[in-house]
């Protein structure tokens, strides 16, 4: 399942997509949890009883701001979350 967390507003589209099929048996030992400086991710049991990562509910409406420090303007050349997620489950739309 592809789970898209985020929003679209007048300034643009801000979504973090998580491919939960790649996330169930995480080969990166849930590295995304520690990699994100904003502690954006959390492991939950989804509606189909699979343990997967999701973006914390309280963070989904402020992605443009919370993720800003990890973008190129913050000095990063690659996103810590997508780099840590070696199975390639996490993607940013912007």
């Amino acid at each position: 399942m592809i789970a898209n967390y985020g929003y679209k507003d007048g300034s643009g589209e801000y979504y973090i997509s998580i491919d939960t099929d790649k996330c169930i048996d995480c080969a990166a030992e849930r590295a995304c949890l520690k990699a994100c400086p904003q502690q954006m991710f959390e492991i939950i049991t989804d509606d189909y009883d699979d343990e997967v990562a999701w973006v914390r509910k309280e963070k989904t409406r402020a992605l443009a701001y919370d993720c800003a420090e990890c973008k190129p303007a913050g000095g990063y050349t690659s996103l810590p979350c997508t780099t840590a997620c070696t199975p390639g489950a996490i993607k940013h739309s912007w």
Partner: protein
Amino acid sequence: MNAEVAAATAAPEKKEFWRWQENTWYDETKNWKDAKIITCGIDVGSVSSQAVLVCDGELYGYNSMRTGNNSPDSAKNALQGIMDKIGMKLEDINYVVGTGYGRVNVPFAHKAITEIACHARGANYMGGNKVRTILDMGGQDCKAIHCDDKGKVTNFLMNDKCAAGTGRGMEVISDLMQIPIAELGPRSFDVETEPEAVSSICVVFAKSEALGLLKAGYTKNMVIAAYCQAMAERVVSLLERIGVEEGFFITGGIAKNPGVVKRIERLLGIKQLETKIDSQIAGALGAALFGYTLMQKQAAK
């Protein structure tokens, strides 16, 4: 002050144009007492609450009403509304699943499941196993969902940051135009030429823009048409993010508004699958069906 003076000086009762029709239904051809497994789905949304009863995996009855001051009472009232009609008690129900915004606050629920999974499951029942793309236009959020032939979610996206493209947005326009909400859809087609969509995607700004259009000489029907078009464009852009597959189905209150639905169909170039079941109960129906599956699994152990 005597009664006549009080009546003469009282403020006139404010008509609530936004108030949509609450309803209760049950299948009079069946008797719930004949069912082996009775499950219930309670969808406590930000605007409306529904209780759906499923007997042996088939829809039996439902009650749909406006959400009250708190989730537990809304859940109780929604269920009580249908139970009173059919002489059922809570003890007669084998399993209750809560869903929607207030799903964790349904006091008598055995399990809570997200509205995304429940809408997919409900749409699969209502529209059949050809349903692949679901647009749920809820009271204060909007969801685009892909599912497989069993109603299992394969891709979803939810926008709950703003009220644009939601039922609440339509209620605001209904009140502003002073036209009953059920009439907005049909009236949006009663225009000589289709106006451009209101440009703002924000309900607050759209409201100001609608007032500006009235001042500029637009008829009420033209303003409604412009708003319906804006809402359609808004949700179509949401759908395009995950893509639209054949087998398109709309759930939620806005599915009852032909002014928005037909414009969405026009923009997408596809027709939605038809159903005779109230689009607003999809989430609660899906929850009740999840409950039925869980009961079957328990029985098989």
